[in-house]
């Protein structure tokens, strides 16, 4: 048993979308074991820090344990919203992909099971 460092891209599904100047990112673990690690590692603080310079408002995390899912709601994330922003990803469709860069520590035995 040993901790390994992994990017979320190897661990989860994720999809993002917009409402006004707010985006949400749904993050879905493949099983309860990985989900338990996500709950510890992918915190509001880490996500907010990860998106420093892109998300200006607060970040909230909601949990749906039955589906091993969590939902991050990030305000002030689109430079004013889809029809106002100068950003190229004006609808925030790629925020989920951006979050996949985040690295977390995970037990290799948990990884073996997923």
């Amino acid at each position, binding site marked *: 048993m040993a901790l390994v460092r992994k990017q979320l891209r190897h661990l989860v*599904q*994720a*999809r993002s*979308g*917009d*409402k*006004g*100047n*707010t985006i*949400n990112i*749904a993050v*879905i673990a493949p099983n309860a074991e990985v989900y338990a690690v996500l709950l510890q590692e992918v915190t509001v603080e880490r996500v907010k820090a*990860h*998106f*420093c*310079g*892109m998300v200006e408002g607060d970040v*909230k995390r*909601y949990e*749906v*344990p*039955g*589906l091993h*899912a969590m*939902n991050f*709601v990030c*305000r002030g994330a689109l430079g*004013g*919203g*889809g*029809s*106002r922003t*100068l*950003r*190229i*990803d004006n609808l925030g*469709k*790629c925020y*989920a*992909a*951006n979050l*996949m*860069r985040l690295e977390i520590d995970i037990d290799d035995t948990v990884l073996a099971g997923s």
Partner: protein
Amino acid sequence: MRTIRIGAGQGFYGDSIIPAFETARRGNVDYLCFDSLAELTLAILQKDRQRDPAKGYASDIAGMLRELLPIARATGLKLITNAGGMNPLGALNVAERLARELGLQGLKLAVVTGDDVKLKLSDIAAEGVTLSHMEDGRDIAAVQDRIVFANAYLGAEPIVEALRLGADIVITGRVSDSALFLAPLIYEFGWNAEQDWELLAQGVLMGHLLECSGQVSGGNFSGNWQAVESLESIGFPIAEVREDGEFVVTKTEGTGGLVSAATVKEQLLYEIHDPSSYKTPDVMLDLTGVQLQDVGPNRVQVTGARGAARPDTFKVVMGYADGWLGQAIWGYSWPDAVAKAQAADRIIRKQIEALQLQYEEIRTDYIGLNSIHGVLAEEPAEEPNEIYLRMAVRTTSRDDAAKLGRLVPPLMLSGPPAMGAFLGVMKPRELLGMWSCLVPREIIERGIRVTVQEVV
């Protein structure tokens, strides 16, 4: 137990119409529901209506109806669409003309109006509604004189009424996306729209899963996307809904794409904030107990949505004029592509300053390097073959917005070496801010009209 089959026809204005034809012909559905209106679609349609008062609806409705009206007549398939956009009556005229041309006398067309409240805003305010921004409480005064559209997200009830009046085709303006899909269930199963919260919750969940068309049937799938077959002929989702609300998401046999617990799960939280209380005009939806089960190839059973009483307000979303976007895109070749693009950026910025162009914001993205990942982008491991840069400006003046693009062509001869792929001067685009607020249900409901007419 009775079951009805509902198909998703479209996920936004501009979506492919071909999967809807496939579903209508081979999908054995009772209803096809089309969501044409994303949040900013009304901004586009409002501009159309400004140019021509007969327009302002989603214009692809004509091609869609030409193909589907004869099928509707032959099989009893009913169509529900919010393609009316900013001008539901204009869309109705198109439908009527087409139906007559196709010899479909007797077909019943319904239109729902009353979502457009732009001309009623001062009356609404006079009743004591603040119209303050629902997220940050800002005062409407800041944007009041710049509002270009204001529409309430209506619920399923007017659509249900249209169906009760015998409508074959129902055209609406802004309604909540899920209401388009929920309405047939209330009508067919006799669910009580003011009481059956658990059933309504399942119905809204079904609508939520289907409203984005291909996003639940294998499109935009972050899981094992490379294993999803034949996206070129993707099947749009179909729901088989039982009278007790339990439903299966599936798609027409022989179409491409994939419906699995994984694809459904990914759509479940799409554009939702608090999963325990997703506010819709028809019910407060709690998704936290939802269960998904693969019950066959391309078949996922969905249960466990919970509901609570609907809110006593409707959401009204307004768009307000908020300046102009000017932009330009051009590229540079290896070697030193990044350095060349950065030099071009410096040159343009200095010229903007020298010409005293009044830009409130100037943004430069390097396409291929950081245009999507922004500050999170990593340095490329190898020197890139080419880099495009995209400059964008925000300004209050349309003319000043247009001036940005004209600075670029001279760089071909007088800028850094090996510039290519300048795609032409892009037209300025008007920027719209979005303003969301809450208005008491009964104020909006007073203005809702359902009109049914027979094609003669």
